[in-house]
């Protein structure tokens, strides 16, 4: 009697996400096929990606659907389970505990999906089970916050009351985001032609940047920090080109940006405010945020600022002013809403026009009206720096 695992589907219901994974794709060119794990096809965790929306699965027990083949023997039904390799402590840890060393030597936490609960699997006359639903009762999605995890399961079966027999190991790349991604990301239509489905290649960066975040504001703030931190090594503000956009003219050239993040040329080293606002908004909205790309303008003077990739406080390339500026902006994108700006640090002390400067990256900072001491006053001493909510958008990804 022997049984082998044929496939595992994480996103087994493309119309819902309360008990299964989201509809995702790998990148612009490549879709994720379901079942995500297939015998002989999936080897590395990245070969089998899945993403869960924490808010959507709250109060539910996620399930996967796995299919099996009986390769020998006559048993009509067996029991199947999968152990969480990360969560197993083993004999060595029992010794460590016995010696009282477990205060210093802690095992790694269990994987985000935990174990696969045992259940009965029956085979048809051809020895096939078809997709069988398994519960993941020990998942940690409720407490993980934004996360990326590599889950490794050890699959086992047993016939009647016999010993558990090994079926092999599978590994999966699992993303946890706070809620169903907001625009430009979509869940429908779920077909492979829809390039606005969340990209696993983008989730890999977004979940790393916002790791552990438990709220949309926290996630958007950490994404803002991460984008600004790309300055110096990967990107810098576009002084030679007059501050023009390199990744966000029209749509967001996410393919080029991911190429840049992976060490390729992408669309080059230079970025402007529209690029930074688009990076923040798109990645934040992927992991549970909900912010726009919106502008202020049209023509205003600047206080000294610390542009992305620069170590010099100056008025952006010493230009003195901006014709416009663009940030990631909440809600209606008016003076009362809050902004996230990964393009520059502003001076938050009592005298933002002169040195010394007390720099702060605007994260969830109210835009404000002149004299309020909010973002607007920190950025600009004079000129027309009014919110332009009609400009708000969420650029499609390409």
């Amino acid at each position, binding site marked *: 009697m022997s049984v082998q695992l044929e496939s595992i589907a994480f996103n087994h219901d493309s119309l819902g996400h309360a008990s299964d994974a989201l509809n995702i794709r790998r990148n612009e060119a490549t879709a994720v096929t379901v079942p995500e794990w297939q015998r002989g096809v999936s080897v590395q965790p990245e070969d089998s990606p899945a993403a869960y929306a924490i808010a959507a699965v709250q109060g539910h027990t996620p399930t996967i659907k796995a299919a099996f083949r009986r390769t020998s023997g006559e048993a009509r039904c067996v029991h199947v389970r999968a152990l969480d390799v990360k969560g197993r402590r083993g004999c060595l840890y029992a010794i460590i505990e016995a010696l009282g060393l477990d205060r210093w030597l802690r095992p790694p936490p269990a994987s985000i999906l935990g174990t696969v609960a045992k259940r009965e699997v029956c085979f048809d006359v051809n020895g096939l089970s078809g997709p069988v639903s398994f519960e993941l009762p020990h998942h940690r999605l409720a407490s993980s916050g934004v996360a990326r995890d590599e889950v490794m399961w050890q699959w086992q079966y047993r016939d009647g009351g016999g010993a558990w027999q090994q079926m092999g190991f599978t590994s999966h790349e699992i993303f946890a985001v706070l809620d169903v991604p907001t625009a430009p990301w979509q869940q429908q239509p779920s077909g492979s032609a829809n390039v606005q489905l969340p990209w696993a290649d983008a989730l890999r960066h977004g979940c790393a940047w916002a790791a552990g975040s438990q709220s949309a504001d926290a996630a958007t703030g950490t994404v803002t920090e991460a984008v600004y931190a790309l300055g110096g090594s990967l990107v*810098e503000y576009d*002084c*030679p*080109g*007059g*501050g*023009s*956009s*390199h990744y966000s*003219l*029209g*749509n967001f*050239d996410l*393919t*080029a940006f991911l*190429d840049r993040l992976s060490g*390729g*040329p*992408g*669309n*080059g*080293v*230079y970025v*402007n*405010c*529209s690029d930074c606002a688009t990076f923040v908004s798109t990645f934040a909205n992927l992991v549970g945020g909900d912010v726009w790309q919106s*502008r202020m*303008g*049209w*023509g205003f003077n600047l206080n000294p600022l610390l542009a992305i990739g620069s170590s010099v406080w100056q008025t*952006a*390339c010493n*230009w003195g*002013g*901006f*014709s*416009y*500026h663009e940030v990631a902006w909440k809600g209606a994108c008016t003076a009362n809403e809050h902004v996230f700006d990964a393009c520059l640090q502003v001076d938050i002390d009592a005298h933002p026009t002169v040195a010394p400067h007390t720099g702060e990256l605007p994260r969830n900072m109210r835009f404000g009206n002149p004299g309020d001491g909010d973002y607007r006053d920190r950025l600009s001493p004079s000129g027309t720096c009014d919110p*332009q909510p*009609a*400009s708000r958008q969420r650029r499609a990804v*390409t």
Partner: protein
Amino acid sequence: MQSDPGLLAILRERYRFAEWSEGTGGAKDPLRVTPLRGTELPGWRLERGSTSTPRPGVSLVRGMWLSLAGNDRLMDLELFECDSASAARLLLLELLGDMQGPPANRLPPDALGDVAFNVGADLTIMFVRANVAVRLRNAGRNTTGLTAEAGAIDALLSAGDAAR
């Protein structure tokens, strides 16, 4: 890529758009931009090329070029094919408005294309030839003037070699 009407009104005034908004050519025998082959610019190697439709009526052919001189110079070339010469000029105005910094400089009428602008010492050049708007920019930290490259692209457009 659609500029805000308020910003567009300011740009029309800033760049005296009325003086150069109406172009000729493109209506009867429009230039058709083809995907980059990598042979268009001697001394440069095409690193990545792409085609897209940033909005209805506009096709974009884009290429990132690495200098073969071994100096880590990277150049971004964009060719926007529009429905008409007038549409290409309006798109050029939008490209000018894409800059947060000070206004670009208009080049003399016979310098390049039908109408052209630059930033700095030709670190960025934008021009229109018939129904095609072109933007060349430095994309690497080691910057260089792009006068010769812009001239080469304009010559190809004029000869129909980069466009058919």
